[in-house]
């Protein structure tokens, strides 16, 4: 008889350790201090969140077209609703709103296939989005060709301006940052010196200074009559500033790649750029996704600083609406709306980065 002992059947765990009751007992009421903490925290949540919820939803006014509609004592979302178009488009001519909608709609439509696992021409589509799309978007926003009315950049504003600034900043800062990071680790002294000086200069000055310089001082140095769009100057300032930060984030990733990876690539005959592009950067960038997205989020929020040079991004547009004599006293609603909008975008980036990290994880623990 050569019968092996059969493994016992898997039994369910006792009811007291699973389910809602088990979870509560284990996490909230495991000991006397824990119970006290749970009760205190519950009370704090009760006295803060409940009134906030009542203000924002239960007692709020949603419909109407003037402040008379706001008499329930809660939040007056009518203010936001009436001003909504302006918050989205700034002073862009109303008849041309469709151009902005089309530009963003097109971008979303183009990006959808990038998230479809089966779609095989991702590289070509990405190249199209990065090279051709900006040209299309530029003409849609700015006009002046193809029968579209020209719209001055000074009229751009609201959330669409915020997205343009952040989008350009994100798309341009990453590649420039990568080049700077590689430059700083280069064996060539001149390249290294230029990268270090660039990074340390832009990292060492506040963004407000950069924006001021770009809008106030730069025109003084340029020859008389040179017109250099204010928005463009602000964009360049933001890109320079953020690419310096990006460079340091990427450099952190580069330093984490072991020397053996470079050696193996060299031994196979891969050139410097192929080693970097195929072996080192894919790994380094994956390692620093949290840092990169952190910088993107900071950049997104930093775009609000352009209000000091007279550009009306989302926050500046909302603030300007406070001075409307018909709507005095509703700044809280405006700020809450601004905060909620920024939060939605930043939180989405954060979640996307986490999903990306999971997707790119190839099971190696190094």
């Amino acid at each position, binding site marked *: 008889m050569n019968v092996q002992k059969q493994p016992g059947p898997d039994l369910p765990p006792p009811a007291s350790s699973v389910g809602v009751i088990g979870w509560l007992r284990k996490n909230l009421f495991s000991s006397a201090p824990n119970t006290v903490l749970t009760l205190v925290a519950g009370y704090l949540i009760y006295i803060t969140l409940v009134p906030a919820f009542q203000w924002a939803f239960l007692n709020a006014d949603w419909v109407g077209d003037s402040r008379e509609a706001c008499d329930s004592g809660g939040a007056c979302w009518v203010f936001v609703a009436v001003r909504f178009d302006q918050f989205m488009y700034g002073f862009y001519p109303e008849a041309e709103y469709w151009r902005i909608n089309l530009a963003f709609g097109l971008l979303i439509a183009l990006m959808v296939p990038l998230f479809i696992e089966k779609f095989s021409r991702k590289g070509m589509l990405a190249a199209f989005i990065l090279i051709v799309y900006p040209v299309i978007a530029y003409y849609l926003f700015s006009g002046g060709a193809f029968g579209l009315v020209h719209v001055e950049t000074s009229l751009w504003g609201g959330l669409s301006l915020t997205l343009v600034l952040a989008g350009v900043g994100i798309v341009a800062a990453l590649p420039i940052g990568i080049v700077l990071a590689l430059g700083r680790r280069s064996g060539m002294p001149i390249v290294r010196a230029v990268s270090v000086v660039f990074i340390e200069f832009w990292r060492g000055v506040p963004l407000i200074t950069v924006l001021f310089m770009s809008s106030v001082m730069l025109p003084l140095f340029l020859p008389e009559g040179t017109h250099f769009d204010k928005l463009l100057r602000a964009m360049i300032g933001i890109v320079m500033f953020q690419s310096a930060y990006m460079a340091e984030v990427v450099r952190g990733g580069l330093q984490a790649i072991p020397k053996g990876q470079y050696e193996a690539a060299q*031994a196979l005959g891969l050139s410097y750029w192929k080693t970097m592009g195929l072996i080192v950067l894919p790994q380094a960038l*994956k390692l620093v996704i949290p840092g990169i997205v952190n910088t993107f989020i900071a950049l997104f929020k930093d775009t609000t600083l352009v209000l000091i040079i007279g550009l009306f991004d989302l926050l500046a547009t909302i603030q300007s609406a406070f001075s409307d004599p018909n709507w005095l006293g509703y700044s809280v609603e405006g700020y809450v709306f601004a905060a909620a909008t920024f939060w939605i975008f930043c939180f989405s980036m954060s979640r996307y980065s986490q999903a990306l990290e999971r997707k790119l994880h190839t099971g190696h623990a190094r």
Partner: protein
Amino acid sequence: MSETDTAKPEMSASTGAMIQIQGMHKWYGEFHVLKDINLNVAKGERIVICGPSGSGKSTMIRCINRLEEHQQGKIIVEGTELTDDVKHIDQIRREVGMVFQHFNLFPHLTVLENCIIALIWVRKMSRREAEEIGMKFLEKVKIPEQARKYPGQLSGGQQQRVAIARSLCMNPSIMLFDEPTSALDPEMIKEVLDTMIQLAESGMTMLCVTHEMGFAKTVANRVIFMDGGEIIEENEPEAFFSNPQHDRTKLFLSQIM
């Protein structure tokens, strides 16, 4: 170095040496790591290099494909002299494959992609052609079934065999092994050594830095002992192990055997 009696100084350029190293010196800053290295390797020869750690044996073979730069002397691989000229370096790396102690597989690529990436980007092959070659060599090292996995999902021995396949895909005429079994668990050493023995039987020119003396005895044509950055002694394996000439060799052998 003058008092050392090199056992078999018969190899010369005229016999068609694949690798000629003549009077090579190397320094790390002030530290003189390699001192007057002279070595000729003939086609199909299998050389095992041993010696205590820090003796410069890894550095020496890493000079052959320019992972390390030598400062004096000559290295000629298949008629091409190794200089700062990038063309020469590329030409030599084309002929020389290398296997590392820590495998150095690319963790973000699958096993098959590891094998074919250089075929595609250096040899400019189509992906299909490259995959055929990749699979052929993965079969040779007996792990074709792991082709779609990532290196992190494989055992150390399997990873090292993939690394060998990756090098072989480039069709090198010389293979360098830098302590290929030192980072492996004992039960995995054999599978890697078997792969190397199989490679030796196919006539590959091999230089192995290793402490596997069994491997040296069965496979090597010559064993080289290095200490303090010098080649102290070189001989056929049988004579090397049974009748070491130099005191430092005797000491080393007594410590590892």
